[in-house]
């Protein structure tokens, strides 16, 4: 049996000695889109940062494997080179570093020597077009003076260029208008199954089902109080839209009781 997948097992993590993740079990298969939904404070972003290796998040137990390889002991750069990508909700602005320089450096770090400069340039321009972005983006400083929507588009551009095995998108839909959401949807769809056999698996973290109209999820998970409390198909997201999280909370509490 294949051991491919982003496999999160019994993951517990804390921030400033407060336990936020209380045992997360979740498997994202290659080429699949999983949505992780939940109310504010349920631990969704903590899960994303813990997987990416942010130093403020302390792993208390459990494991995260990429296609069978444990990544929790790795530094953030090694996790990225192993094939994990995190799209930030609030990416840092880095004045003085051009988008072009940043993306080229990152691509060379995760996929050394795989593209000659001319092909790399073509790749960037192709992806800019898919995301409906102007080439002038490339000469701007990373996220410096960017609008919320521009920051998210740059995250998506990086995702497309770095072509990871697994991508965690932390509230990518917030701050995006419908056109941008559609562009994100196209970009993700294109990465789920590429001509060269690459099949990125996605974990899309969101409050709202809105993004799932543009990126249909195969599996929907509901997270509350640091745990996955319910997993289902796309209809689960529709239920959240109809009822909010209260109905699910009552059902879960009732089930426990």
């Amino acid at each position, binding site marked *: 049996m294949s051991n491919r997948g982003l496999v999160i097992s019994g993951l517990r993590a804390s921030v400033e000695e407060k336990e936020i993740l209380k045992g997360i079990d979740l498997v994202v298969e290659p080429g699949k889109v999983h949505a992780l939904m939940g109310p504010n404070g349920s631990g969704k972003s903590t899960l994303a940062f813990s997987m990416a290796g942010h130093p403020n998040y302390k792993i208390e137990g459990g494991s995260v494997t990429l296609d069978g390889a444990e990544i929790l002991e790795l530094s953030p750069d090694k996790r990225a080179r192993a094939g994990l990508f995190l799209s930030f909700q609030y990416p*840092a602005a880095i004045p003085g570093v051009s988008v072009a320089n940043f993306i080229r450096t990152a691509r060379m770090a995760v996929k050394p020597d795989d593209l000659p400069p001319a092909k790399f340039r073509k790749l960037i321009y192709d992806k800019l077009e898919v995301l409906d972005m102007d080439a002038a983006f490339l000469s701007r400083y990373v996220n410096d003076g960017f609008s919320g929507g521009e920051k998210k588009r740059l995250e998506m551009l990086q995702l497309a260029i770095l072509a990871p095995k697994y991508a965690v998108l932390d509230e990518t839909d917030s701050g995006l208008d419908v056109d941008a959401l559609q562009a994100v949807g196209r970009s993700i769809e294109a990465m789920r199954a590429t001509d060269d056999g690459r099949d990125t698996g996605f974990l899309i973290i969101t409050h709202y089902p809105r993004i799932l109209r543009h990126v249909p999820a195969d599996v929907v998970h509901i997270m509350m109080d640091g745990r996955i409390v319910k997993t289902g198909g796309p209809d689960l997201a529709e239920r959240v839209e109809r009822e909010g999280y209260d109905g699910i909370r009552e059902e879960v509490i009732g089930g426990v009781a």
Partner: protein
Amino acid sequence: MASLSPAKAAALIQTSAGHTLVEIPDGAQLDEPIVIDVDLDAPHAAATRVVAGPRSRVSIVERIHGGAPNQTVVLACEVVVGAGADVTYTVLQTASTGAKIEVTRRSDVDTDGHMKWNVALLGGANAVDAVVSHHNARGTSTEIAAIFFPVARENVQLTTEVRHDQPMTSSQTVVRSIAAGHGRGRYFGNIRIAAHSHGSEASLRDDTLLIGKDAKIDAIPALEIAANDVKAFHGATVGAIDDEHIFYLMSRGIERDAAEKLIALGFFEPALSRFPGEALRDEIRGLLEAKLAVSQR
């Protein structure tokens, strides 16, 4: 001590006993920069004087290098900007390790003249550089862009001052500095707007990054405003590399040292991007990268 290249038919250039005189005739427009090579190993002090005639345009690049340990060399530089003239004076100081150097620079700008100073202080054990621009007539303007980067046990002291002594004058000063290792720096940035200099505008922006606990830079910006109806701004920051920036770059597969390098080199860009010519900027980026490598060792 100083030599020039290439010889410019349009400019009268004289050098003798360390003194260099560059005269740009009225209305002359020089497309290629004049390079003044200052070798600190020559035995005597040097003085450079540039006189740009009315409506002339010239770019000068002064390259300072060499220098013996524990020997202080004193240099002076004076630029006279004629009415409506446009002068860019760029300094690339890469004095030898151990050299000590003190430089005073002055520009006097006539009506509607524009003076642009670009100063990169990247060498020497002890480098002191002071740039003062005088706005002596209406409509004059000065831009100053400066970078310095003391590493190991280097000391750098930079002073910039713009004197707005007439109405309707303007200036912009942008300084970016990093200290690493036991590097020490000090920056004094002054803007003086005299009485009756109404309608003048001045800004001064100074940002400093410290790498390591032993690095230190003091930044002392000052505004002296004696006129009404002026716009003046100054701001200064001193800080370390932000951990969130490092994490963001590392999350894209970039190793920590490489992430620090990207951030540090990028930090100079708002000042460095004002220097003329991509080749010169790339040369300076290379020098900064080499200094950074020393500090990361």
